[in-house]
């Protein structure tokens, strides 16, 4: 059984303060602290590439885990080092992994962690692999307009790497997926332009569908809401997390106090927000059943459950 053994991460030290943008965007302090929720956004150095961020997350993983022979690497990104080739190959080279190591990218945004876990797990299972790495690294800072309030206050840079092995700490259970391709334009980057976001479209879609995805996922895994220890929502913004929490708590009062927002000094790091939260759970708090729910571009929602086995 392939599951999660550990998670490594990289957060650039440089932070961009949203409180210094109040005049520029004609907003007040409460809008940043209570609504956006991100006081600071992590920013990679201009020369740092996606494969650099991933390599640094790998270095962090190596500090705590014995990696052994890595047989495959998968990277979730929509901001690879180049359009061609796949950035996973560059990572394989930078990490000095053997030629026998499979390497591939997946193109997903905020629901990418849940998708990637299942893709990598299935890929490993079908090939009899025992040890693989699943990276998330999607630095949006390079594609943001400095004049666009909708995106400039939200996105931060980060990378994570999840060690998937046949001796996991957490088993990956069944997932639920929702796609509304009709609204694909709600989060979009055309050709070489900057990122454009329809906040209402995304919020409305997530607000309508996230709870039903969580419901479906619990049902697929025959889990009662009471047995869930933690619900990790994609840290899109404090407003969206609060909004979905409110709706989730209506449906599942047992989730009270189990839905954290912990990206105040990080920002929305796309597919990295959930593993950044999960990393601490695996290392420190060790909850048994954890729901992971990613939502955003596509428009897309993916929800799964990870369950402690050791």
């Amino acid at each position, binding site marked *: 059984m392939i599951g999660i053994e550990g998670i490594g991460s990289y957060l650039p030290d440089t932070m961009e303060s949203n409180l210094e943008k109040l005049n520029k965007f004609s*907003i007040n302090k409460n*809008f940043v602290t209570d609504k956006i929720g991100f006081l600071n956004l992590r920013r990679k150095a201009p020369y740092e590439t996606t494969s650099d961020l991933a390599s640094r997350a790998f270095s962090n993983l190596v500090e705590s885990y014995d990696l052994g022979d890595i047989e495959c690497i998968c990277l979730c990104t929509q901001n690879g080092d180049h359009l061609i080739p796949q950035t996973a190959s560059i990572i394989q080279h930078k990490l000095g992994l053997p030629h026998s190591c499979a390497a591939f990218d997946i193109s997903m945004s905020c629901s990418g962690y849940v998708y990637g876990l299942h893709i990598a797990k299935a890929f490993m299972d079908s090939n009899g692999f025992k040890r693989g790495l699943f990276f998330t690294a999607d630095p949006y800072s390079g594609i943001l307009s400095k004049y666009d309030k909708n995106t400039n206050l939200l996105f931060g840079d980060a990378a994570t790497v999840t060690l998937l092995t046949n001796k996991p700490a957490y088993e990956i259970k069944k997932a639920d997926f929702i796609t509304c391709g009709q609204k694909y334009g709600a989060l979009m980057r055309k050709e070489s332009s900057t990122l454009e976001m329809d906040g209402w479209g995304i919020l409305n879609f997530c*607000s309508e569908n996230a709870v039903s995805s969580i419901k479906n996922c619990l049902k697929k895994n025959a889990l009662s809401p009471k047995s869930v220890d933690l619900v990790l929502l994609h840290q899109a913004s404090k407003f969206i997390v609060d909004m979905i929490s409110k709706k989730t708590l209506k449906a599942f009062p047992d989730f009270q106090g189990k839905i954290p927002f912990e990206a105040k000094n990080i920002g929305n790091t796309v597919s990295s927000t959930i593993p950044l939260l999960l990393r601490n759970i695996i290392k420190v708090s060790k909850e048994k059943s954890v729901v992971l729910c990613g939502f955003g571009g596509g428009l897309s929602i993916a929800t799964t459950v990870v369950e402690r086995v050791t």
Partner: protein
Amino acid sequence: MNKVTSDSIKDKVVKIVQKVKKNNHNYVLNAHLTSQGADSLDMFDILISIQDTFSINIDIDQIEEDEWSTIEKMANNIINILGNSDT
């Protein structure tokens, strides 16, 4: 839709706005809510609550065209949508 129903919908919208803004402020019904202290995310919060309360769907194009910017416009739109769905 008679006046009583129209007034009751306006009252419901006012209550939604007050709940989002956590106050009992007397809002001017035909003035833009953003000129009365609501920011862009308050507006989203209000519109999502309206969708939930009245089981309707609000279109992004209408929001962009300022069709949901005042309490009066909100109430009129709700009445129109509910009226159309009755027929």
